[in-house]
Structures are given as structure tokens and as C-alpha cells.
């Protein structure tokens, strides 16, 4: 049985029973969707469809419809790609890394964060494919035997490393997510009243019946997958950073890129998790499961990773000066004072200054402030990628080719469209899938329920001699804000 120190604050608020958890998570799926859901889904769908229209226009006309030129041949496409991949990182980090570290607070947020990962990585993958211009030959990046003679992919290329990294990351994330979903789909299946939903969830649940042997395997599979996904999280964004780091462009070929990109990815990923979860908890009335403590923990992650990112910016500046390479120094001076100074200033303000506000407990436990900062961080992280990419190549080694980049309506449309598609997917997920890991949450009811903290749970005394005996008398402590802090 689980043990937890009595001084820990509960992870699930209220006197929730196993059945309450099932009801709270499955209820919104079984009932009618609220009006707000339809409105949000409708807007997301419209924006997404506009984006798809832009993509189709681009495919029909060519990538000349983007604002790229001979100098800036990578701009919003790769910026958006790296931004979306980074957002995806929080999901795997929460489900894999925090699982290995036995962080039980992850259980309330892992399911929706993993969904976010999958949709974000899917959006990320779109950009390199679109950037090819000929989407229909996208399969050429795979090392498959072909009829064009000895035409193979180049395994030395960081862009091919991306193909393998992103596809592995996407498929492993889907597997990890789905294996966790199977028991919860079974719960919905067994409650379903309509024949269609029973049939649908019956197929999705793969005939899960909750046998002891299956749970035994489930736990090992989850653990091993977490063990595999953890280095995968770090490898994926390191490999994405190699796209730049292995080049010869000033401002790109720095050895700090892999850890700096990973920290940035976690930073932006957690910010997006905050944005989505704050909407989700309110919309689906999940305040008992995703409460201030969860928000605060995530804000601490944002603060730490934001600080790492800040240190990385300063290290880059220092190294550009210390290296004595004039091109390198110029690249950084140009970033801060050149024509894109506003992008650099936005990046610095959003990514270095804003997370430092989280040092104040009042701010990091404020839901409204968290929501605001989460959006600020995501804007800042988009600018970070834009600054790295565009400011480094718009003024390269050859002054005669110096140029500016201006996005066209297609650039903007495709980017905004992916945000719409992402939200449409996420809202559909929230409507039809269990947004919390029901089975996992049930394992922490007894260790974290308030009732077990104050010894008033039904049957608490009866179990005193058993494993529940680990639940000790609560230590008198000044945790009066536990209940009151929740809004």
C-alpha cells in the first residue's frame, strides 16, 4: 500500500470515494455538452478550417506564398515547428519523468497533458511536411526501398534525425497515452447506457476487465514505457536543436543548444498545460482534482525552467563575447539592437522576467495570474524561436544578401490554423475521453483524501491494524490555508 507523510497536503480535495471519481470524470462525457463547449469548439473548428484552407492554397500555389526569400529561407515554418514540439514536451515529462520520480500530483494532470502532447506534436509535424512544398512525396524521408535507383535518405543529416525523433516521439506518446486509457475506457463502457456508446467504448477498451494479472502487467508496462520515454523527451528536443547547432550560422552553432532547448520546451509545455488545465477544471468542474497545489507545483516548474532559459540566454551572450569571433558577437548585438530588437525584447520580457514573478507565493497560487503568465510564456517562447532563426539568418556572412522577413497572410493563416486545429482536437478529447486518469486517481484516494488526514474517513479505525495503519495521526501543523487556498 502507498505511504505518504501526514504533513502532505491532500491531492484530492473533499471526501471523494472511488465511485465519486468515476462519476466526476465520466459524468461530463455521458451528459450533454454545455453551450460554452459548442461555442469554443465552433470557434476552434472555424479557425482550424481557415488554416487548412491556407495550407491547401499554399500546396496549390507553392511556398512562394510564404514570406521567405533567398536569405531568410526558414522563418515561421521552423519557428512554429520548434514551438509546437516544445509544447508537446510537458505531457511526456509529466507522465514519464514524474512517474519515475513517484510524483503523485501528476495523476490529476497527466492524461490531458499527454493528449496535449500528441496534438502538439501532430501540429509540429505538419510544418516540415508543408515546407517540403510537395506534401505528397513526404514519404521520401523514410528509408524505404524505391524505384529511383540507389536513392536513400541521408542518415547524417540532422533533418533526418528530426524525422526519426519526431515520429518515434509521436508514436511512443500515443502508445503510452492509450495504454493508460484502456482501463478508463472500460469504466465508461461498463456505465454506458446507449448501445452505440457501449459498442464504441467497448471497442476502445479492448475488452479490459481489470484482472490482477492484467494490472500487474499494466504497471510494469507503464513503468518501462516511462523509462523509455524519459530519455526520449530529452533526446527529441536535443535533436531538434541539432538542426541549428550542427550548422555554421552565427548564433546557431552553440553547444548549449540541447539543454537550453529542452529547458525551453518544458517551460513552454508547462505553460500550455496551465492554460488548458485552467480552462478544463473550470469547464468540467474538476476543482477537487486539479487544485491550487497542482497549479503551484507547475508554476514552480515554470519558474525553474524559465530561470534555466534565462541563464542560457546570458551564457550565449557571454560566450559570443568571450569566443572573440566577430560574426558571433555581431549576431547577438544585432539580435538585441538590430531591426528585430522588438522580438528580442519581447522574448526577454516574457521568458526571463515573467517567470521570476513566480517566486511570490501569492502570485504562483493565483489562478488568474497563472493563466495570464501561461499565455505570456507561450508568446515569449514563440518569439525565442523566431529570434534564434530569423535574426541569425537575415544578416549572415554576406552583407550583400542581407534581407528582412515579413510574414504573409498565408504564414499567419497556417500558424493560427494549427492553433485552431489543436484546440478543436483538445476540446473533442475533453468531450469524449476521460480527461483524468480514473484508475490512477483511485490509487491515491486513501493516501491523500482529507478524510484520511483528519481521521474521519469511514472505516478508518477498522483498518488501523492493516496497511492503512500507515496513515498516521495528522501532525499538528499550520496548514489552515489548505482548504481556504482553494479559491
Amino acid at each position, binding site marked *: *500500500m502507498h505511504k505518504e507523510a501526514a504533513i502532505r497536503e491532500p491531492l484530492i480535495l473533499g471526501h471523494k470515494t*472511488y*465511485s465519486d471519481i*468515476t462519476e466526476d470524470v465520466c459524468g461530463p462525457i455521458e451528459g450533454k455538452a454545455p453551450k460554452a463547449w459548442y461555442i469554443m469548439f465552433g470557434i476552434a473548428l472555424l479557425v482550424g478550417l481557415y488554416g487548412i484552407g491556407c495550407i491547401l492554397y499554399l500546396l496549390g500555389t507553392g511556398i512562394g506564398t510564404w514570406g521567405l526569400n533567398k536569405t531568410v529561407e526558414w522563418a515561421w515554418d521552423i519557428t512554429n515547428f520548434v514551438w509546437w514540439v516544445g509544447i508537446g514536451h510537458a505531457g511526456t515529462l509529466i507522465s514519464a519523468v514524474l512517474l519515475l520520480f513517484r510524483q503523485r500530483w501528476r495523476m490529476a494532470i497527466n492524461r490531458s497533458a499527454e493528449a496535449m502532447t500528441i496534438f502538439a506534436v501532430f501540429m509540429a509535424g505538419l510544418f516540415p511536411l508543408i515546407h517540403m512544398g510537395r506534401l505528397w512525396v513526404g514519404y521520401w524521408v523514410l*528509408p524505404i526501398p524505391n524505384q529511383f535507383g*540507389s536513392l*536513400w535518405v*541521408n*542518415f*547524417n*543529416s*540532422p533533418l533526418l*534525425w528530426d524525422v*526519426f*525523433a519526431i*515520429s*518515434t516521439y509521436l*508514436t*511512443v506518446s500515443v*502508445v*503510452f497515452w492509450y495504454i493508460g486509457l*484502456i*482501463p478508463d475506457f*472500460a*469504466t465508461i*463502457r*461498463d*456505465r454506458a447506457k446507449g448501445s452505440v456508446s457501449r459498442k464504441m467504448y*467497448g*471497442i*476502445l477498451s*479492448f*475488452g*479490459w*476487465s*481489470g*484482472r*490482477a*494479472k*492484467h*494490472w*500487474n*502487467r*499494466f504497471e*510494469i508496462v507503464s513503468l*518501462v*514505457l516511462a523509462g*523509455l*520515454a524519459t*530519455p*526520449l523527451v530529452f*533526446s527529441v528536443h536535443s*535533436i531538434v536543436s541539432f538542426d541549428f547547432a550542427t550548422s555554421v550560422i552565427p548564433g546557431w552553432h552553440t553547444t548549449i543548444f540541447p539543454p537550453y532547448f529542452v529547458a525551453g520546451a518544458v517551460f513552454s509545455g508547462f505553460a500550455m498545460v496551465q492554460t488548458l488545465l485552467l480552462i478544463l477544471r473550470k469547464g468540467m468542474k474538476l476543482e477537487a482534482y486539479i487544485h491550487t497545489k497542482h497549479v503551484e507545483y507547475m508554476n514552480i516548474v515554470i519558474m525553474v525552467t524559465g530561470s534555466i532559459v534565462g541563464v542560457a540566454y546570458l551564457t550565449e551572450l557571454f560566450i559570443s563575447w568571450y569566443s572573440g569571433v566577430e560574426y558571433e558577437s555581431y549576431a547577438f548585438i544585432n539580435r538585441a539592437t538590430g531591426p528585430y530588437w522588438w522580438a528580442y525584447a519581447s522574448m526577454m520580457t516574457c521568458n526571463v522576467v515573467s517567470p521570476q514573478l513566480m517566486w511570490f507565493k501569492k502570485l504562483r497560487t493565483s489562478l488568474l495570474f497563472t493563466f495570464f503568465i501561461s499565455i505570456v510564456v507561450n508568446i515569449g517562447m514563440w518569439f525565442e524561436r523566431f529570434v534564434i532563426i530569423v535574426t541569425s539568418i537575415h544578416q549572415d556572412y554576406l552583407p550583400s544578401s542581407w534581407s528582412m522577413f515579413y510574414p504573409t497572410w498565408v504564414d499567419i493563416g497556417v500558424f493560427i490554423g494549427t492553433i485552431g486545429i489543436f484546440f478543436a482536437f483538445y476540446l473533442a478529447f475533453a468531450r469524449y475521453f476521460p480527461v483524468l486518469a480514473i*484508475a490512477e486517481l*483511485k*490509487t491515491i484516494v*486513501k493516501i491523500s483524501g482529507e478524510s484520511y488526514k483528519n481521521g474521519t474517513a469511514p472505516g478508518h479505525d477498522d483498518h488501523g491494524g*492493516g*496497511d*492503512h495503519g500507515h496513515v498516521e495521526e495528522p501532525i499538528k501543523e499550520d496548514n489552515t490555508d489548505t482548504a481556504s487556498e482553494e479559491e
Partner: protein
Amino acid sequence: MADRVIYATYDDDHTLLEGAKKLVADGVHISDVFSPFPIHGIDPVIGVKHTRLGIVAMMFAVTGMMLAVIGFQYIMISDWPMNIGGKPNFSLLQNFPSFVPITFEFTVLFAAHGMALTYLLRNKTLPGMPADNPYPRNTDDRFTMEIRLSENGGMSSDDLHAKIKQTGIVEIEEKDYVVIK
């Protein structure tokens, strides 16, 4: 004669665990347990062996890694060695540093998918498979023990019922044992 099975249902995982320990100590063989979440500590009591899926994952990982290396050797070294940017591919060993990222990804890809597939096949949890939990609430808040009469040859149905009733059950039912899968 068809086999008979007793389904003893509990409303608490801990009660079931304690009950299972007591029954096993009394010589009762418990065939299976159905629960909405893993009951830690139940496996050694009812004789569920530790799974070897971790070893399976390792085997898939090694397979993936070997396939990646064989692929590099064939594609990049022997079939069509490319000279890109003055960096020729003449030797697997010398070129291996640039193959490390994909070797790693391929290893993880094989290990994760291979293990997950093995897990689903071994469980017989596949799309379209029928569920065989005795009660719908086994995936909600009820914990059920399955005890087959044929596996408890020395005990009568009444004996078993009497023993089970002492373990804090909320419901007990005896049925014909039907194999669904």
C-alpha cells in the same frame, strides 16, 4: 458437470486483500481478482507471477538497435556511400557518431512498440475483444474475487461460502463457470 464459480465482491481493496490472505491461509485457491485499479500486494497472495515484459522490452530494444546498425551499414556504407560536404561514408565505425541519434530513436521505437504489442497480445486485450469482468462495477468501485470449485477440490460449496462470508464481503454469488475467451 459444468464447473461452478463463486464471485465474492468487496467494496474496499484493503478488505479484499486481507480477505484473500485469510482465505489462502485457510487453503482456498483464488483464481483471479477483478478490480478498478491495481491492488498492491495481491499478486503474491493469489499467486500471480511477476511479468517478464521488461525482458521482452529489452529484447525488442536490442533488435531495433541491430536493425538500425545493419540499415546504416547497407544504406550509407555499402550500397551508396555519399560524400556530403566533404564528409564521406566509408566506414561504419568512423561515421557512427552521426548515426547515434537515429540508433537511439530506433531502439526506443522498437522497445516501446514491441513491448506494448506483446502486452496487448498476452492480455488478450485487443480491439473488439469481449470483456469478462463478472460485474460492471468492477471497473468502478467494486472488487471481486473469483473462486472456482474445481480448483478447490477438497472443499464443498457450502464450506467455501462460509469461509468467504467471514471476510467482509458485500455480495456473494455462485454461477456456472463460462469461458468467454
